[in-house]
């Protein structure tokens, strides 16, 4: 602290006052003691001493009055222009073709690396250099980088003339620690950086703010000022400045990137079952986003490897199992691709779009810019399972011709056919050939599903029907396919009790097939409301696709007459011509399931998809009927998680759709929980409670925040409250999703041109995009920057008493008075 300035310190003045009082008392005492000696002094001496004392007192009083003089200082300063360069990760993405700033760089680099693409960051560096070149003559420049924080990179020296050199990019983009700045910040706080710049330069005249960015704000925290709010603040601030007659603060923008996403192809999501059967068709639905161009042709490959530790080494390496040529429309595409697993155990599947695929010459880029998002992996547990199916038919009808191969094609099905009308020494068809129908209950129990296709009731005995009944009640499946050869009335007449109980519909025992009638008018069919929800009627797990498939479901000419459905059965399909005859229905008998179809012309669904939908319908039916035997539980529930690929801490929704409405009554009042665990660590389980649906609804819902990394399994296993054992669940479904850190910068690579435009317009600035980054454009922008110098008038106050001479005089007077008194013998 300056000792002189201490005198003007208020605290010190108090101290001085205290000292003054102390001195007064002290002098009174001293003078009282000196009174007798003072008489010996001459009058002159006395007056000299009092003169000293008087001056001291006068100085003290003068100090308390704080005398001062004032003068003013006037100076002119250049305005400050802040150049803010976005250093977030998205600035490392390629700059659009046609950016004149980087043409030279690209041309030079592509001589050695044909695929080279200049980045937005490089474009921003060149733009900064050009701005410094133009503005440093009449501006004081500050070059900042902003990403997660605002940092000053350079304050280029003001140039007096064009002859002076301009700083290089290396000079402008060097950080405080000496390293070169790079575009690697994980977040981009655009609005907040403007806010901080305005605060930092509040004492300066700000000529302009120039922001070079793609204007995508990512990773803001709650205290940040987002760009839209900053835009409004600037608009208001400028309004006030103009009202005060001052120049507004213009924000000019240079937009890196385009309003379109980068020409990328990426796999966003893969939908696949948790489990599949060996030899079965395993289908994947791959969501591919095409930001490239409409009608882009590429290939989607599917590779398979075993992740079982004891698998042969060759199986632990990816082998391509499917390849599909696809034509992608712009935007989101959902592509099905399938394979037939040939090995058991946990298998990993990689779905990939080759980044080096054949790309026509006419497109803008050699390849999609980002190849790290061109693949996804999912794990599927491949199990060896089989269902023993017995098909009994009287005659080889058209449906029989197509149904048998459809069942034989399913690797899960071990089919035994029994054609009742066949020659006595006929070798029946099927994977497992039989000579006679099973007779005893034990023999019937070996089958999981039986199909009775318009059978001749005279050729099946009561004991055989008893065996069939026992098989169904023990969890087996039964399918009735009606036909014109025998009809169901005969069957009911012969085996009334058993068959009536098994059928999910009521049949008039007196209505026999009318052979004389011709059926020449087709009728349409429709799914019932409950049928639409039923798993058997789901041609695709994707709703839109399913609806599309059913739109082309065929019309029929004949159906078996049905009196009515049973009260506890579910009608899936009915006539749509006003007749409303139920055509397909399912019902529960014991622990088994029975399916009935009144039409025998499902083969008409071979058009327009050939065998695909036809085969899959029957396979779905067989698996539905045999699911208790196959899985040990019913699976008429659908478990979905959304989204299927999430970032850590992102919210995940769980939807449990109960497809079989009869199951809703079993779930009423029961809590339903989803178990969520990492596939790599099944012991670390989180329980997520699923809220029951509103009355009449069938969908349970829950949500949670994703944790961990990698493949996460979501499982709902519901055991009936009155079950004796937990072994037999009501249903047990699983699905999985993936938690992985998605670079936020790559989620959307398009520049936010609208935000830049709004900011520019709000402040009256100039906006440049990659299309107009020529020299004349920079000249025009530079002209927009206000070059007017700022006159700064400074008022300087000079405290007369608060100076060294004043203090010295004060001390000299006191010391002089003391010295004289000593000299004259008063002390």
């Amino acid at each position, binding site marked *: 602290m300056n000792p002189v300035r201490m005198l003007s310190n208020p605290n010190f003045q108090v101290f001085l006052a205290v000292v003054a009082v102390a001195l007064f008392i002290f002098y009174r005492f001293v003078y009282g003691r000196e009174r007798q000696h003072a008489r010996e002094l001459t009058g002159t001496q006395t007056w000299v001493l009092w003169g000293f004392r008087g001056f001291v007192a006068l100085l003290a009083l003068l100090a308390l009055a704080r005398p001062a003089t004032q003068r003013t200082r006037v100076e002119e300063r250049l305005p400050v222009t802040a150049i803010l360069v976005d250093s977030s990760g998205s600035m490392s993405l390629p700059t659009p073709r046609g950016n004149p700033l980087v043409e030279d760089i690209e041309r030079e680099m592509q001589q050695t690396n044909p695929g080279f693409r200049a980045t937005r960051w490089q474009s921003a560096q060149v733009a900064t250099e050009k701005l410094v070149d133009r503005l440093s003559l009449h501006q004081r420049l500050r070059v900042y980088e902003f990403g997660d924080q605002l940092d000053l990179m350079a304050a280029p020296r003001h140039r007096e003339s064009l002859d002076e050199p301009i700083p290089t990019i290396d000079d402008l983009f060097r950080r405080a620690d000496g390293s070169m700045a790079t575009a690697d910040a994980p977040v981009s706080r655009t609005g907040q950086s403007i806010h901080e710049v305005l605060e930092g330069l509040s004492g300066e005249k700000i000529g302009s703010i120039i922001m070079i960015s793609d204007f995508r704000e990512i990773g803001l925290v709650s205290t940040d000022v987002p760009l839209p709010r900053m835009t409004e603040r600037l608009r208001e601030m400028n309004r006030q400045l103009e009202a005060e007659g001052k120049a507004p603060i213009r924000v000019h923008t240079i937009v890196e990137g385009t309003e379109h996403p980068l020409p990328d192809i990426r796999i966003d999501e893969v939908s696949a079952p948790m489990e599949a059967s060996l030899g079965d068709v395993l289908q994947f639905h791959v969501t591919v986003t095409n930001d490239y161009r409409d009608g882009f042709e590429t290939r989607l490959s599917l590779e398979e490897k075993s992740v079982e530790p004891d698998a042969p080494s060759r199986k632990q390496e990816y082998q391509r199992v499917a390849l599909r040529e696809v034509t992608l429309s712009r935007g989101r595409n959902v592509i099905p691709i399938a394979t037939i697993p040939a090995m058991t155990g946990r298998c990993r599947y990689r779905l990939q779009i080759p980044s080096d695929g054949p790309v026509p010459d006419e497109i803008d880029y050699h390849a999609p810019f980002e190849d790290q998002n061109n693949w996804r992996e999912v794990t599927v547990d491949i199990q060896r399972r089989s269902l023993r199916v017995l098909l009994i038919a009287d005659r080889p*009808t058209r449906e029989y011709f197509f149904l048998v191969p459809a069942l*034989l*094609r399913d690797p899960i099905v071990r089919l035994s056919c029994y054609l009742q009308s066949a020659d006595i020494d006929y070798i029946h068809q099927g994977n497992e050939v039989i000579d006679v129908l099973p007779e005893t209950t034990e023999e019937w129990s070996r089958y999981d599903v039986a199909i009775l296709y318009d059978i001749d009731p005279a050729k099946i005995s009561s004991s055989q029907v008893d065996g069939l009944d026992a098989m169904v009640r023990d969890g087996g499946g039964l399918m009735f396919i009606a036909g014109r050869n025998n009809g169901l009335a005969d069957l009911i007449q012969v085996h009334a009790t058993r068959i009536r109980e098994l059928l999910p519909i009521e049949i008039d025992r007196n209505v026999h097939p009318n*052979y004389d009638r011709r059926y020449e008018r087709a009728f349409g069919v429709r799914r019932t409301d409950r049928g639409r929800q039923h798993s058997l009627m789901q041609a695709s797990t994707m709703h839109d696709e399913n609806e599309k498939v059913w739109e082309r479901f065929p019309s029929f000419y004949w159906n078996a007459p049905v009196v009515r459905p049973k009260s506890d059965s579910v009608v899936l399909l009915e006539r749509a011509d006003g007749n409303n005859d139920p055509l397909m229905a399912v019902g529960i008998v014991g622990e088994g399931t029975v399916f009935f179809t009144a039409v025998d012309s499902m083969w008409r669904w071979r058009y327009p*998809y050939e065998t695909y939908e036809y085969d899959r319908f029957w*396979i779905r039916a067989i698996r539905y009927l045999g699911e208790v035997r196959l899985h040990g539980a019913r699976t008429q529930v659908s478990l979905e998680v959304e989204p299927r690929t999430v970032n850590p801490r992102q919210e995940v929704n769980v939807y449990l759709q109960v497809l079989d409405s009869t199951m809703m009554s079993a779930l009423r009042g029961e809590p339903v929980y989803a178990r969520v665990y990492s596939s790599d660590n099944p012991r670390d389980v989180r329980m997520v409670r699923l809220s029951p649906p509103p009355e009449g609804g069938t969908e349970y819902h829950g949500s949670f925040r994703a944790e961990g990394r990698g493949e996460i399994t979501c499982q709902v296993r519901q055991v009936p409250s009155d079950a004796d054992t937990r072994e037999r669940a009501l249903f047990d479904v699983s699905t999985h999703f993936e938690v992985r850190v998605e670079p936020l910068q790559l989620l959307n690579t398009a520049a936010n041109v609208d935000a830049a435009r709004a900011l520019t317009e709000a402040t009256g600035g100039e906006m440049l995009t990659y299309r107009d980054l020529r020299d004349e454009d920079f000249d025009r922008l530079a002209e927009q920057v206000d070059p007017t110098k700022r006159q700064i008038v400074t008022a300087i106050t000079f405290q007369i008493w608060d100076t060294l001479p004043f203090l010295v005089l004060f001390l000299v007077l006191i010391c002089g008075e003391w010295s004289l008194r000593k000299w004259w013998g008063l002390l």
Partner: protein
Amino acid sequence: MTKTTLNRLMSRAVWGCALLLIAAAPGARAGEDDAVRHVEEDPYALLGLGEEAAVSPGVDPAFLVLPRATERSTMPDQLLTPLTEEMIEEMLTYLSNRQDPDGGWSDTQFESNAGVTALVCLALMAEGSRPRIGRFGRQIDLGMEFLLNHVEDSGVIAARGRYQYGPMYSHIYSMLAMLYAYGDMPWRGETQDVLARGIQAVQRSQKLDGGWRYQFSREGASDMSVTGNVLWVLRTAKKCGFTVDSEAIAKGVEYIQQCALPDGTFRYRVWGLEASPSLGGTGIIALVNDGRLDHPLIMPARDRIEYDYRRYTVEDLKERRFFVYGAWYASIAMYMSGDDYWIPWFEKTRSVLRAMQRSDGEVADEFDNTVYTTAMAAMLLQTPYGFLPLYER
């Protein structure tokens, strides 16, 4: 039908059938048996090999199935263009209008003929109709009645307008149509017996060389065309629950293999002329029905058909003798061979048929026969509907 006409017709069929006899290597069958046994031991093994792998479940190789399709086919929508549908409609209308009062169909050279009637019924069944059910249910019903009314005591099905060299073609086409229909016509319970007797008649007439020819007689030499067709019918009969002597089938297949030449061409008869590739479909059908999808004869025969239709122009093919007859056999073979072969072949053939089609919707052969040719063309064009079990994959 005149002798010359029939000779030409049969010659065409023989040329095609002979193609099947390529490279009947003695070791081939053993290898296939191994494959079948392997599948039986592990039915999943072949399924993992992709679309080319087939499974022949059970103990009879006739019941051969390919793995399930892994995606929806777009072929039907691609091929059933408005033009195709218009052609089909015109043909079916023509056939429907040409039915005789007795339920049968006649042709220019084949009056009231069982074979022609059977072919027309198959064409109408390809539309999706069945006896008494569907748009052409009445016509099929009457057609079947016609066939049932012309069953001889010997079991042979042949009507008045029978072929002068013998009724075998009428019989086997009638058998084929009735095999596909009899499960859907319970009001004629005797059909099963008729078919059983028809099969026995065919088996009784197998010649000593293992094949068949026009007459129901064991004497004389066989030809490959009739033999191929008979084998086709016998396989279908097996699928319908009829017991067929497996030895008869084995001898028939062996006869076809004997017709193969070392250079890979075929002969109409063991000692006869080489066959035309356009009719090679019969051989492919016979071998596939015998459970031999990967038989070494199939690939060259298929490629020959593909090459033949690709090489010649529409005008060339249109002028070809008995084009529709050959195309019908070829269609079954090409459909079996997969879309890569089937789609371009179909489009080319459709163009030829369009060029041949007359104003009433019919197509004709050189002798102005319009019914059997139109029936075959309609069957061919309706293949993408997938309603006729004749066309299998």
